């Protein structure tokens, strides 16, 4: 989280100061948006997820213990849990999109620095969603396989398998070539 959240701001929010609450909302929105983009299966639910996440955050702000975890970690956990809850409702016996990719995107590992955040997210979204979900939880947010299995209601072995598949996909898409391909077109 680039923007720091001060303790005074948190205390003002606990006093239900509307200005402080709006300030906290504006500071946290980009980070929580990024988490939603990574975890949410149905992107149309982003606004609903953010609404639920902020309401949960403000209502349970008094339960935040600074000694247990950083504020960033605490906010991330709330947003991830809301995203996973929405995913459960959306993915169960619902859409089976069969998008026939005619071209697998590839990426130069050295070009990460030149890529914007949006481009990185778009690149990672090409990963099949079940693998991307495990990859996010394990690699970026530091959950263990046991915790992931409890959160997603899957077996620990399946969690390990999906993480392995995610790494295979990354391996497949990374090229050592100096040529950098940004040559896929998204259907908007």
């Amino acid at each position, binding site marked *: 989280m680039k923007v720091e959240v001060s303790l005074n701001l948190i205390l003002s929010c606990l006093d239900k100061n509307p200005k402080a609450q709006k300030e906290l909302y504006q500071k946290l929105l980009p980070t929580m*948006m990024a988490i939603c983009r990574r975890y949410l299966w149905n992107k*149309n639910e982003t606004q609903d997820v953010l609404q639920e996440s902020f309401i949960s955050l403000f209502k349970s702000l008094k339960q935040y213990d600074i000694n247990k975890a950083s504020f960033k970690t605490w906010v991330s956990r709330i947003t991830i849990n809301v995203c996973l809850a929405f995913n459960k409702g959306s993915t169960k016996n619902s859409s089976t*999109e*069969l998008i026939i990719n*005619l*071209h697998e995107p590839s990426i130069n*590992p050295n070009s990460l*620095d030149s890529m914007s955040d949006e481009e990185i997210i778009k690149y990672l979204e090409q990963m099949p969603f079940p693998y991307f979900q495990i990859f996010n939880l394990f690699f970026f947010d530091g959950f263990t396989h046991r915790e992931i299995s409890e959160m997603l209601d899957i077996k620990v072995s399946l969690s390990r398998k999906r993480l392995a598949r995610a790494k295979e996909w990354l391996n497949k898409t990374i090229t050592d070539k100096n040529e950098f391909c940004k040559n896929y077109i998204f259907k908007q």
Partner: protein
Amino acid sequence: MNDFLNKLKARINNLELSNHTEVNEDALWNSIQVGITEDVKVENPRNFLLYVPFLLATLFLIGFTGLYFKNNKVSNEQQKNVSLNQQNSIDDLMKKSNSTPIPGVEMNDLDQPILTPKDELDQFTFNSSVELSKRNNSSPENNSKKSAVNSHSTISKNSTVRNKVIATQDNNNKDLQKIIVLSNNSVVEIENKITTDQNNEELQQDNVEINSSALTGDNEIIAGQNNEESQKDIIPSNHLAIEIANERLMVSMIPSVFSNLDQNQSRKSLDLERYFTMKEKEKRKISLGLFTGVHLLHSNLASNSADDQIRKNLVNAGLKPQLGCSAGAEITIQLFKNLNLTSGIEYVKSVEQFNYSTKWDTTFQNGQNTINQSSERIVKHYNRHSFFSVPVLLGMEFQKGKFEFGANIGVGFNFIRSQRGRTLDNNLDLTDFPLSENSNLSPRPDFYLSYQIRPYLSYQLKKNLKIQLRPDFRIQNYGKLEFYNNMKFSSILTGVQTAIVFDLFK
């Protein structure tokens, strides 16, 4: 690879997205403010409506169950009281009779009549007809006459007398008089005649004694006429003692009166029995049913507008019915012989599959080469919606042995609980619904009517328990909504249900 992953991790951990087109910041903040300022989340008012039928049905059940048990208790108590009253009346009369002394007869200390000594009776013989006369016990003249009579009359020891005594003092008398005839065979015959005569009060206090010279066989002894002056001697027989009671009743010795009393009481109990039987028949048959079922939902858009035809055809072609389920409870009240009214509450979960495919041409570059390709997108989405239904159905039923068959027809009041899915918008683009909390932007309204017909076949398992199999046909009219550009949206629900029915009152 590891280097790449570490860089990726560092970028992701500091990732922030500023350009978020999916989110309206101001609208989002307003909705968050509403959410955090309300202490108690306000339930959607339609949820309250969903609980009302449950509450009504529960109150209805409790009320009828309470009345049923109360009626049973009252009827049992009343029947008990009737029998108790009957018994009490008989007991009272028995006590009264026991306490009533026999007039004109001397009673010992135990209130028992003193019978004529045997040795005295042996001296008496009946030689001629027996005459009844009155005797004033208190008069010394009578006492002397008694002894005189005793000396002149004899009674045959071996005579078996069975006498039927009819005593009437006066035709106008209405007081109850009783004559007790005792014989050596202890045959007791009682004749009652009710006579009253205020002038004959003195007479009624006296004993009527029989003077008889000989008495064999059956004799009719007719009491003397109303003659206050006649004082005839009466010879009591060792086999025969005749007494005439005055207006006080000896119930224990008057079976006819006793039987009259019995008849009165039994008449009363019959009346009460008839009353309760009628009351039982008047009770309406009420049944409680629990049911579950599966169904298919066939939805259809209809429009006469030329602008909507493409969208209408694509949506209708895309919607395919899937198996849904339902469960509920209902109460059936018998109105007339074969006519009944059914209502209740049902929770229905329906599913439809929305299919859509689209192709487009695309190009991509590989280095300096441009390649033309075509892409295809196939969408298969399960649209789900759930609702509560409160049916009000009129039914006819017919019974044949253990089988009952009939049909229910009526309307249903449906309240949408949730709906979620995918369809085509006005631009023929895929869109999810609901778009927002605004119900106008969902394909189905929060409330709509359905028209239902439901034939059924029941089989009686036990006295008050039966199982029922029934197909279910409904036309669900959603009306014209803004979501589908005012095209008429409706569904036909076809399904089958099984039910267990309990007869609460029968």
